[in-house]
């Protein structure tokens, strides 16, 4: 397999040339791609935020302010989680939490939870999970309507002591064969509503201040 012996100088030259050409093409690809990649990410975020907003708001010219809040017990993550506060004509109309259900079956479940300013749920969507295909993954809206059960629910409807899956004498059906997944999601949604109840004014105040800052600049 040795073949021709080769030439040291030519080898060095070839390596240097291809290293420079490679670096240049990666730089050019990056310049070409970076705005489009950022736009794709923004579009993806907007699509997912819209999916948990009250549909009647979609035609409005909404403005979103992003905050980060930390509460390990209620939001499920030791890291700060993102909260998107949605303003319609200067008034906060909804908050969208990127909460985590820490006790998913295979791994923590990332959720997007939309809450209206009157503390009613407008939508819940799983955004990242590793639940078992065919069982726990039926919480995805493409696979079953289970997750839509949360639309319109609040801590009064059902009453907060009934916020549990049917196996634990609660009002929420569990996905068959995926009680652990169902329990994790119901608990995370309830905890997010509890967090919103305790911190609503604070979140809306911070977001309004942030929006005013952005306007001033």
């Amino acid at each position, binding site marked *: *397999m040795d*073949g021709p012996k080769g*030439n040291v100088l*030519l*080898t060095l030259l*070839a390596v240097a040339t291809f290293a420079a050409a490679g670096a240049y093409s990666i730089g050019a690809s990056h310049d070409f791609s970076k705005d489009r*990649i950022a736009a794709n990410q923004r579009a993806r975020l907007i699509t997912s935020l819209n999916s948990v907003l009250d549909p009647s708001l979609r035609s409005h010219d909404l403005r979103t302010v992003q905050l980060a809040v930390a509460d390990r017990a209620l939001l499920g993550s030791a890291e700060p989680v993102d909260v998107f506060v949605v303003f319609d004509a200067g008034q906060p109309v909804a908050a969208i939490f990127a909460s985590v259900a820490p006790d998913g079956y295979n791994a923590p479940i990332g959720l997007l939870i939309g809450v209206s300013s009157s503390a009613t749920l407008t939508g819940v969507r799983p955004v990242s999970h590793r639940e078992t295909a065919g069982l726990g993954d039926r919480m995805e809206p493409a696979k079953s309507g289970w997750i839509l059960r949360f639309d319109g629910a609040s801590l009064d409807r059902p009453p907060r002591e009934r916020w549990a899956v049917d196996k634990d004498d609660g009002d929420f059906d569990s996905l068959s064969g995926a009680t652990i997944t169902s329990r994790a999601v119901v608990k995370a949604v309830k905890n997010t509503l509890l967090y919103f109840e305790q911190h609503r004014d604070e979140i809306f105040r911070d977001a309004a201040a942030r929006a005013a800052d952005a306007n001033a600049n």
Partner: protein
Amino acid sequence: MQTQTDLRTVLATGLWRNNAVLVQLLGLCPLLAVTTSVVNGLALGLATAAVLTVGSALVAPLRGALLPIARVPLYVLITASLVTCIDLLSNALLDDLHERLGIFIPLIVTNSAVLAHAETIASQRGPIAATLAGLSTGLGFLGVLVTLGALRELLGHGTLLADLPLLFGDRAAGFHLALPFDGMHVAVLPPGAFFGTALLLALCNLLRRHDAPRPAAVAENNAAESPQ
């Protein structure tokens, strides 16, 4: 100079006789992981074939001038640059598909079928044959990805080419086949990948049962194994 027959042999070797997956059992990790649909397989197959072809075409003319120890590092440098460009551009232009293939685009660099090819280039007789060997190895890999993707999509979802718009935009939305059954879910799960691959290998061995091992194919096998 090589004759046309030689070039035809090079082409047949990569596509079938010494196919990266079916004969050498290389590149199985991306194969098993992404082939849940035809389009997934097609996209990763095209990217891999492009990397193999362009990488071979760039290294082939230099192979006589290079020190043998520099051949693999230079080849990896070139494939890594190409793969990074493909990763960035697909993220910009084919966002949903990029999301689905995820880590497997950057991992083309470490695909054993691609790495093994560095030595195959050196064993070819001329730059044209070496480039053609890259193309045929890539197309051979692409063929297996698409076949396994089709098998698993048909059995697992009861559809064929259902996600074509991810690769070709909304124009391609109508071109799919839907069978009147929901599919056996296991086919798109990891065990289904192994079952499907086993079926393809068995079929391939059945078709080859009468081929006596050719001296050329044996020599290439040895060449392909040596870098590992």
